[in-house]
């Protein structure tokens, strides 16, 4: 059972890093072209073509824009990489969900799917196994993207009640073909297997079981006080 869990964890890690490295490669490719454009424009200026001055400024702005984009990618990747530092840690569920949605977006876009995140402003602080909730959220995003066969929008929303935090992943025109049913069944099995082991409030041994319903609602419910 542990081996299967490790295999799934590794496969998830591989998918995320592949997606992020592709995104980062695009940033580098654009910076590479912008640097080349700067050289072209400088050559023109040396030849007495002053028209390039304005475009030189635009190229510099373009480089700064890509650097900001790259910084965001690296920050997300860094938070993701450190999510395995401690088996159990305290984290903001919103940050985790937003990070995973951003990292899953590229793979979803290949299927013509766009994510729309509507997370509530209030942080949802949770103590638990961050890596597993990331993996489940990512699996949920992939499932919703696959279920939107012809492309469309996946809405990711959160709500916080007194003892309940819920992340819902919904998609209009949900279609369940063979692959989608397989993914759904794997995610359900994962949830059953992990339920009750994902969340604890440190020191007081309060359990926070994870609840799954379809289309998809990942709920963290405070019980057993």
């Amino acid at each position, binding site marked *: 059972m542990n081996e299967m869990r490790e295999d799934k964890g590794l496969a998830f890690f591989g998918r995320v890093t592949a997606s992020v*490295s592709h995104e980062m*490669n*695009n940033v580098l*490719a654009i910076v*590479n*072209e912008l640097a080349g*454009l700067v050289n072209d424009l400088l050559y023109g200026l040396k030849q007495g073509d002053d028209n390039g001055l304005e475009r030189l400024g635009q190229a510099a702005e*373009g480089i700064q824009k890509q650097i900001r984009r790259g910084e965001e990618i690296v920050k997300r990747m860094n938070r993701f990489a450190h999510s395995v530092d401690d088996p159990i840690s305290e984290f903001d569920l919103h940050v985790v969900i937003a990070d995973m949605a951003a990292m899953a977006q590229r793979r979803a876009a*290949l*299927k013509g799917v766009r994510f729309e995140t509507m997370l509530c402003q209030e942080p949802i602080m949770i103590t638990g196994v961050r890596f597993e909730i990331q993996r489940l959220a990512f699996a949920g995003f992939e499932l919703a993207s696959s279920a939107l066969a012809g492309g469309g929008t996946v809405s990711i929303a959160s709500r916080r009640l007194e003892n309940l935090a819920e992340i819902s992943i919904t998609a209009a025109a949900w279609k369940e073909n063979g692959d989608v049913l397989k993914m759904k069944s794997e995610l359900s099995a994962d949830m059953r297997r992990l339920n009750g082991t994902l969340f604890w409030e440190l020191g007081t041994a309060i359990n926070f079981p994870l609840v799954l319903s379809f289309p998809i609602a990942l709920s963290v419910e405070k019980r057993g006080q």
Partner: protein
Amino acid sequence: MTLAKVLLVDDEEDFTNVLSQRLIARGLSVECAANGRTALQKAREMDFDIAILDYWMPEMDGLATLKKLREECPHLHVIMLTGHGDVKSGVEAMKQGAKDYLEKPADLQELLAKISEAKSQKELLFEQAIEEKINKIMGVKGW
């Protein structure tokens, strides 16, 4: 040799925007498309020598676009752009009919050399086809 007419296809519009400026500055004629569907539409409407396709694109990826372009515009030469170190995708693209592939970020001189080579090959094939037609006509007429 006339300058090449290039169709540049990538969903990263900042990338196509800057690369097209650099290619145009070198005298090439460039049209951009942000996805496979638009690329196909432009290839139907205009005559291009070369299409430069990104491998990873939303909806219709590079391979699917390549397949469609090969069906509809068999004389169009395609150069595939793959991720850094992604030789496997490049080889797969060549198996599917791409003339060549380049890893992103690409070196402009290398890209220009590949465009020039593809353009020369296309012109040579065109001349050969004309020559064959002339020979056929001459054979029929007994000249």
